[in-house]
């Protein structure tokens, strides 16, 4: 299979879906002439023109609301946040409007749209620029929340999200844009269903549930532990709402141990949700309490040595797995 970068995979998804469906358009800050702050939208303006690749004034709440209005009246907007940190000023449009319009209109209106952009810490961009927003948006009924860790998932999930009839919060990895990985040929039109986890590596030693950037720490930990004879089963939920709890519980019943690894803060969020499901549905199968590896509960510092301490590392995954394995 060919290898392309995460960024290119996203771009292909946008290209293909915009070619396929004339109601799809992309809107955001610098998505057109500048081709996106992270160059995801490179070439889109040239191909689709200013009517469908729209550079906006700097107003996240504004263009999020523009998108909601367009979605309610029949288009399929893709709203790019330069980073998800900036979505907080558009919170009301996403949470009180996009997520609720279908329900509050008695099912008479739909809001088929994708909010997308980079999520999580980059490098040394400090507290206001390093949020993992997954816990905020996964709390909201009416939203899908998708967070791909690989180029293949990025493309296949974005294509499905664009075709979805409900609003999707699509969380890209700010540090993953350059990541290379296998992606099917363009003519294959691969659609990856929302709400379905992927078992990225099979094993019987311990289940590690991880998504986004820390998924790669989990995979690295699996390589290392294999040498010690511990075979990790790495499960990437890929969609955080709705969550494929069956896949997670199935894996835990097989391995009898579970570690959850995520970049968001430890209080609540999908990390705690997964632990809750596992203790309720696989209690009798557990040989050890479920461990979590999370960011420490502090706003992200700028200093690189401190930032490195905050984020989940492969070393911390290894420690957690050893703890639940009593090794």
């Amino acid at each position: 299979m060919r290898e392309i970068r995460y960024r290119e995979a996203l771009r292909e998804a946008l290209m293909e879906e915009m070619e396929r469906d004339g109601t799809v358009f992309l809107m955001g800050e610098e998505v057109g002439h500048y081709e996106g702050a992270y160059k995801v939208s490179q070439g889109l303006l040239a191909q689709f023109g200013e009517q469908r690749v729209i550079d906006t004034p700097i107003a996240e709440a504004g263009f999020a609301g523009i998108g909601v209005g367009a979605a309610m009246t029949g288009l399929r907007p893709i709203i790019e946040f330069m980073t998800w940190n900036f979505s907080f000023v558009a919170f009301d449009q996403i949470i009180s409007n996009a997520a609720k319009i279908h329900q509050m209109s008695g099912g008479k209106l739909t809001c088929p749209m994708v909010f997308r952009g980079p999520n999580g810490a980059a490098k040394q961009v400090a507290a206001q620029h390093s949020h993992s927003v997954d816990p905020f948006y996964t709390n909201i009924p009416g939203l899908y929340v998708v967070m791909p860790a690989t180029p293949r998932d990025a493309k296949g999930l974005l294509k499905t999200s664009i075709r979805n009839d409900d609003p999707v919060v699509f969380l890209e990895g700010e540090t993953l844009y350059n990541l290379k990985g296998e992606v099917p040929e363009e003519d294959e039109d691969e659609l990856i269903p929302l709400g379905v986890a992927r078992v990225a590596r099979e094993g019987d030693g311990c289940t590690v549930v991880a998504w986004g950037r820390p998924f790669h720490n989990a995979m690295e930990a699996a390589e290392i532990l294999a040498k010690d004879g511990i075979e990790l089963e790495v499960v990437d939920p890929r969609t955080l709402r709705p969550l494929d709890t069956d896949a997670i519980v199935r894996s835990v019943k097989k391995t009898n141990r579970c570690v959850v690894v995520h970049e968001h803060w430890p209080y609540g969020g999908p990390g705690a949700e997964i632990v809750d499901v596992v203790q309720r549905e696989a209690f009798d199968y557990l040989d050890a309490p479920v461990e979590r590896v999370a960011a420490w509960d502090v706003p992200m510092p700028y200093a690189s040595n401190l930032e490195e301490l905050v984020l989940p590392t492969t070393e911390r995954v290894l420690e957690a797995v050893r703890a639940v394995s009593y090794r």
Partner: protein
Amino acid sequence: MPDPLRDPAPVPVRPGETTGEDPALGLFQVLREDGRARGEWAPDLGAKTLRAMFRHMLRVRLLDERMMMRQRQGKVGFYGAITGQEATPIAAGFALKTQDWVFPALRESAIMLVRGFPLTRYIAQVYGNAGDVLKGRQMPSHMSGRAVNQVAWSSCLGPQLPQAVGAAMAAKHRGDDAVVLGFIGDGATSEPDFHAAMNFAGVFKPPVVLICQNNHWAISVPSEKQTASATFAVKARAYGIPGVRVDGNDVLGTYRVIKEAVLRAREGEGPTFIEAVTYRIGAHSSSDDPTRYRSEEEVEAWRQKDPLQRFERFLRSEGHLDDGLRDSLEAELEAEIKAAITEVEAMPRPATETLFEDVYADVPWHLRAQEDELRAADPPPGHD
């Protein structure tokens, strides 16, 4: 801010049309307070349309009285009447075509009635029962009707305005000739969404008409404390949009201005911002007591400018209305409203089964599981 109605003067709707006075600072008016029309500006409407406008205004006035009464009797949880502000929504309803969209604020639900939304369905939204197309999910006075292209406003003030601009951009994208009306109150012009909507409207020039109903009070905060601008309409200038200030208690004036703005939008000439100067005669909502923050003299002065009475004086002076017609119309409307309320109050409450519907286009597995859990409860919840 000076008393906007103290020295009313006619001004052109289109900038530079005639008199040279800035339409954002003056006050466009067709009907003087005594009900006489300024002939040169009167819209060309026949007796039938004029009577229909009056009928809709009176219908809403009577309906609001009934609904406030039912709220006081504990039959309805909440209600926000539009008494004193009927002119703008009714005029707006008459200025639109079927394909146009409305993104209202709190006091424009009645546009739906003008555009043919059935009265019983409308009242059912106040009760949130099984006859409510919104399935009991929305607060009263947040009505919407997909059938008449009207969405609901958001309880957080302002979001509907960028949405209106977005819907207009979508119409432009599709290349159809739909126009979108977006409404906001004077208070919510302080919200960031107002700025965003005005700015995007100015930059992208979609077929949208943004209307501020300046009723002088944002619950207890007077409009003077909301802005230091000379008028609300003049704010449009900074966004590169024509701004027009109209007497919002003059149904013919608001009709004329909205109609012109809608025409401009439909012809591709871009957005207009309209300030309709009016007054909230009643409370903000059933949860508010306005005697705590404003004087009876002030309210009484505005009662003298009442849009319904003013229009009635006009219709009588033109020979379109007399005592007999007026009385029979009121009796007919009272009977219609009473019958509709009786019908709605007999409707059952929303079915428990609807609880998990429409959260998503397709019900996901985790909601099915929660539904099963709820059903398994003994005794079954949610039934009377």
